[in-house]
């Protein structure tokens, strides 16, 4: 097990390097640059700026310097767009925001999704099943860019209960709507995955045995069926969790949370190379780590899986 974890972490290093190089190349291949503007800069001004940010150096040198800075000093460089801040500042400010509402979204999606899925499976083909399926299909069909304005319309404009956006240090009133908007479609997916996998498990022999022994239903479900039924949910949850905590562009932009998703998109539009790289690496590392965590959880839940 430990050697498995170690091996996976070793593989992560070249994976991230490939990610860095690939992103770098794509980024530079995009037309335009961070300092293009409506008003083209005089060549001498442009030369000064390029010298300041090291953009006048050969391409390979730039990649090398960048990687060197990250590895040796954990320095992701200065933001080209927001001159008084470094990429580390940008991430330090934006990531806690998305982590907060992303974490709560994951909790909400998991709790409601699994409950809904289990309820639907054990009351298969009853009104409860149809209701649960209906809710999850409805929730999945409602994209968050439709969901967000509807929430604002109801809770802000009509009821006047919640502020229409902002973050304000993460007070709960400001977190509610981003969490609902972000968790809904994840919840729907989790409900559907749980339902179908639960149905499969409930029809397997060991459950039939448990029922034949005369165990009460809640015991069969909680102690025997739920754990194996959650395996597909867990493999879904790894990448989904990364998606949630690194922020949704729609949620960030719509609710003006100041989260990292907004920085990511804006930096791509502004060709803010350093910020694009910083966030790409962050998302990459989180994806690798959470996938590793999923694999470990797998082994813990399913005794058939051994590394």
């Amino acid at each position: 097990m430990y050697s498995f974890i170690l091996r996976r972490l070793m593989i992560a290093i070249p994976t991230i390097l490939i990610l860095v190089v690939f992103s770098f190349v794509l980024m530079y291949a995009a037309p335009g640059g961070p300092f293009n503007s409506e008003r083209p800069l005089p060549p001498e001004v442009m030369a000064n700026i390029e010298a300041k940010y090291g953009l006048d150096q050969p391409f390979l040198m730039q990649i090398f310097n960048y990687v060197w800075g990250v590895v040796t000093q954990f320095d992701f460089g200065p933001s080209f767009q927001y001159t008084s801040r470094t990429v580390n500042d940008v991430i330090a400010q934006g990531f806690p925001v998305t982590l907060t509402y992303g974490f709560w979204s994951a909790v909400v999606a998991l709790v409601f999704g699994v409950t809904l899925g289990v309820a639907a499976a054990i009351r298969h083909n009853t009104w409860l099943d149809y209701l649960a399926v209906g809710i999850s299909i409805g929730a999945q069909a409602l994209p968050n860019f439709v969901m967000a304005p509807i929430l604002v319309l109801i809770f802000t404009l009509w009821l006047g209960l919640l502020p229409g956006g902002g973050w304000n240090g993460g007070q709960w009133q400001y977190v509610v709507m981003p969490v609902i908007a972000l968790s809904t479609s994840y919840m729907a997916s989790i409900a559907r995955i749980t339902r179908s996998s639960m149905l499969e498990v409930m029809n397997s022999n060991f459950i039939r045995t448990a029922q034949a022994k005369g165990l009460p239903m809640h015991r069969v479900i909680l102690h025997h069926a739920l754990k194996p039924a959650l395996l597909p949910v867990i493999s879904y949850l790894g990448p989904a969790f990364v998606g949630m905590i690194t922020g949704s562009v729609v949620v960030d932009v719509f609710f003006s949370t100041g989260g990292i998703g907004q920085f990511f998109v804006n930096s791509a539009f502004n060709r803010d190379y350093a910020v694009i790289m910083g966030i790409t690496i962050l998302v990459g590392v989180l994806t690798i780590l959470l996938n590793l965590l999923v694999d470990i959880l797998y082994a813990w839940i399913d005794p058939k899986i051994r590394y």
Partner: protein
Amino acid sequence: MTLKATLRASTAAALIAMGGAALADGHATHPVTGATLATEQVFTYRVLDEHSSLDPGVVEDVSGSEIVRDLFEGLMNDDADGNLIPGVATGYTVSDDKLTYTFTLRDNAKWSNGEPVTAGDFVYAWRRAASPELASPYAWYMSLMAVEGVDAVIAGEAPLDSLGVSAPDDHTLVVQLSTPLPYFVQMTTHATTFPVPQAVIEEFGDAWTQPDHIVSNGAYVLSEHVPQERSVRVRNDMYWNNDATIIEEVVALVINDENQALTRYLAGELDRTEVPAGQYPRLSEEYPDEALSFPRLCNYYYTFNLREDGPEAFKDVRVRQALALAVDRDVIVDNVLAGGQSAAYTFTPAATADFTVPSVEMAAMTQDERNARAVELLAEAGYGADNPLAFEMLYNTSDAHRSIAVAMSQMWKQTLGVEATLANQEWQTFLEARGNGDFELARGAWCGDYNEASTFLDLLQSGSGYNDAKYDNAEVDELLMGARTAEEPQINYTRIEEIIAEEMPVIPVYHYAGVYMLNDALMNWPVDNVQQNWYSRDLYKVAE
């Protein structure tokens, strides 16, 4: 030397003294209007995007400049009508050859840490703005101001102290220009020319503008900044005219989506927001006291590519004329934009100071006459049913730009049988393509850097880096040069507009309007300041 300006300082001082008295007594009434003031004086407004910087020498965007104008104060300020009033300078004199400006600085101006603001702070700031080390994207502004020696300093070929700005004593600032510039003093209301605190910058480097470090000399200081979410500024007790300030706190909220911003405005979270395109008629009916539209100093146009390797068709002036004539601008401003914008037949907006729109022929015609003339011209140029004109029109991705492009291409198709294909590109890609001449017909827009016609007409000067058409007319160049020293530059500008109307290197489409929702309790918004150089310290809220 001729004494030029004391600038109505006495009136201003009187008003200020009254303001101080009224507030000090705790009478919550406005010193001039007598209106009862609201107890909470907080102004909250929406900004489209996070500001690029709060460093006066570096800031390049509108939302950043708005904040910087509150935090710092330069030599001169704008009043509500866009006229110059004293800032840190109480007045100035200009030499007979119009090359030397001597500013007298007030002796009570202070930084927020209590240190006096001196002429040396300006010298430091100007040298810094031009320095290769700072590498400011706005270094070109110093060059536009024609400060002596600036280009060599920017290029790193001359030391910083060779820049034509000096401080003979703490309260005198002398600026040497390399060429006379009638609008030079106007340019000192811009952030790039504001003083900066040397000691603080040297201590904290790039991080000096963060709320914990920043020291500023304007009516407000920065108290909080959460990037991409909000920035908050509160009144500066050290400001020389602090007694006249009424708004206590100013909050700028970053809201990317303008419809979401409007919703939050309607929910009472904001005092000001922009009106999304097309929604002004509805809002002005529902909220007549809050929906505002007023002229802005910006134009919107399409530029032909007139380079050697550009489209052959556009080299024929009759084709350019025909296309310009066949655009029904009234439909665009009244039906597509519907926000009080005005149809443009000249490049320079009518709102520009000291500029009278010359009577160009096209403006006087009806649209039917224009269309008839356009059909004739295009036929003369050899295009018609058997040889249809086709080209691509390029704009940057945006709903409003697309609507306008669709409308224009339909007008051309219906009137002239012209096939205009629409192409849109994301902003950075668009800038690259347009700058490299990789287009046939491209969208352009310009907001004046200062309130004078040359800020627009310079775009058509043959050597200008912003002349995307690569339009080259020796007479225009000469007239522009002459306008710099002319007693009445208006004559030159009129002639240039006539030449543009004849040769049509660009198609002016409309001139901008500022279209806002503004809380009706917020008073004194400078709607007549076409550059929208507003200062929070001029605003106040009345009790509802």
